[in-house]
């Protein structure tokens, strides 16, 4: 104690200097915003660096534990592999944007049953009500339209294939927007017909046929096929066009089901006008 006092007395000048400087810096840091931020930032940099070092060391020490955990997790994940289970999770998400309101939601599904050789062909998908599929949703692949969902159960749904003579959808010629009805005549599974095209409309073989905006099921502009043959008008004002389908219905395996989020609103409005 006596020694300490001696030291203090002997170096009182330096000690006092240091104390006053310390007070000064406390004042600086507390009273000047700029210095405060610089001080705090560098402080964070220092403590952050130290924490990093400590962390990397403790990580190293815990490696055994982590390895155990990882291997357990691997086993668990192996058990969860999709081959072992019927895929039921949805692979879509809603895209929230304030500028663009999302209208169409795509849900992927697998075709588990399909036919092309009947007059009324149906497709069965491995997703149903529980996965968000509803009736009258459009079904497409990236090659074009497949059909429309006709009925759904909890985990499955049946699709009215485009190759079904009961299905008629609104279509248009892409280059000049002339609308017509599109249906399958039940003959060749690769060809369908586009009817009600006025005879003056310019159409050539190879022109693209897409869905029109009249449909409440499909977005506008989804590929249906290309004009393969233009039949001369048989006395009337309309022509028929044989369309080569863009999809090979014999080969489809994965499809996208299109949900129209604004469909109810549209139908409600249209029904109101009809009343």
């Amino acid at each position, binding site marked *: 104690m006596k020694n300490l006092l001696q030291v203090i007395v002997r170096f*009182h*000048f*330096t000690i*006092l*200097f240091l104390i*006053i*400087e310390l*007070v*000064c*810096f*406390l*004042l*600086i*840091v*507390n*009273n*000047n915003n*700029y*210095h405060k931020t*610089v*001080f705090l930032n560098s402080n964070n940099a220092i403590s952050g660096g130290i924490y990093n070092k400590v962390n990397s060391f403790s990580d190293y020490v815990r490696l055994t534990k982590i390895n155990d955990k990882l291997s357990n997790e691997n086993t668990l994940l192996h058990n969860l592999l999709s081959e072992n289970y019927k895929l039921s999770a949805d692979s879509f998400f809603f895209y929230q944007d304030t500028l663009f309101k999302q209208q169409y939601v795509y849900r992927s599904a697998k075709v588990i049953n399909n036919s092309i050789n009947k007059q009324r062909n149906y497709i069965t998908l491995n997703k149903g009500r529980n996965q968000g599929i509803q009736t009258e949703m459009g079904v497409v692949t990236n090659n074009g339209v497949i059909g429309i969902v006709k009925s759904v159960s909890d985990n499955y749904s049946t699709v009215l294939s485009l190759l079904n003579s009961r299905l008629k959808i609104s279509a248009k010629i892409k280059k000049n927007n002339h609308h017509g009805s599109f249906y399958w005549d039940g003959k060749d599974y690769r060809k369908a017909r586009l009817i009600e095209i006025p005879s003056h409309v310019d159409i050539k073989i190879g022109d693209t046929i897409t869905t029109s905006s009249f449909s409440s099921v499909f977005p506008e502009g989804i590929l249906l096929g290309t004009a393969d043959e233009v039949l001369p008008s048989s006395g009337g004002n309309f022509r028929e066009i044989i369309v080569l389908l863009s999809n090979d219905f014999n080969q489809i395996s994965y499809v996208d089901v299109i949900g129209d989020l604004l469909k109810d609103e549209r139908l409600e409005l249209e029904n109101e006008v009809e009343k």
Partner: protein
Amino acid sequence: MNFIVKNIIRFIILILLQVTIFNNIQLSGFINPYLYVLFILLLPFNTPPWLLLVFSFFMGLSIDVFSNTIGIHASACVFMGFLRPYILNYISVRDNYECNIEQGLYVYGFSWFFKYALILILAHHSFLFIVEVFSFNNFGDTLIRIILSSIFTLILVITSQFIISKK
């Protein structure tokens, strides 16, 4: 008693000068003269060191209060006050410093005062500007500011000594 009164008057006058005139001089952003350090330069030789620190602190703090930079000038002044005894030892004259004599320009000659003032002003300004910037980025700019301002302050200090001694 006379010394004390004289120093208090000097204290007040220097603060007023600094706050009203010299704080407003900013030539090209690099030259900020700080004449108030004259107060610390001219404190009596026999001022006890601890009192020197306290005076320096209050001098700097007063300037801080007026220029809204709490602590910056105070820390620089305390640093300067801390160095003063060592500088006095370092450039001591042959005889010991006489008690109670204020060191003016002509007590120990111009070159002695010049050296004394130069070192302390340089120390003060270095400390001040570095603390003000609070980083070593763009140290070149800070260095230019230190040197130019020190020269300007030194000129002011020496000029003021000439003016006072002629009266």
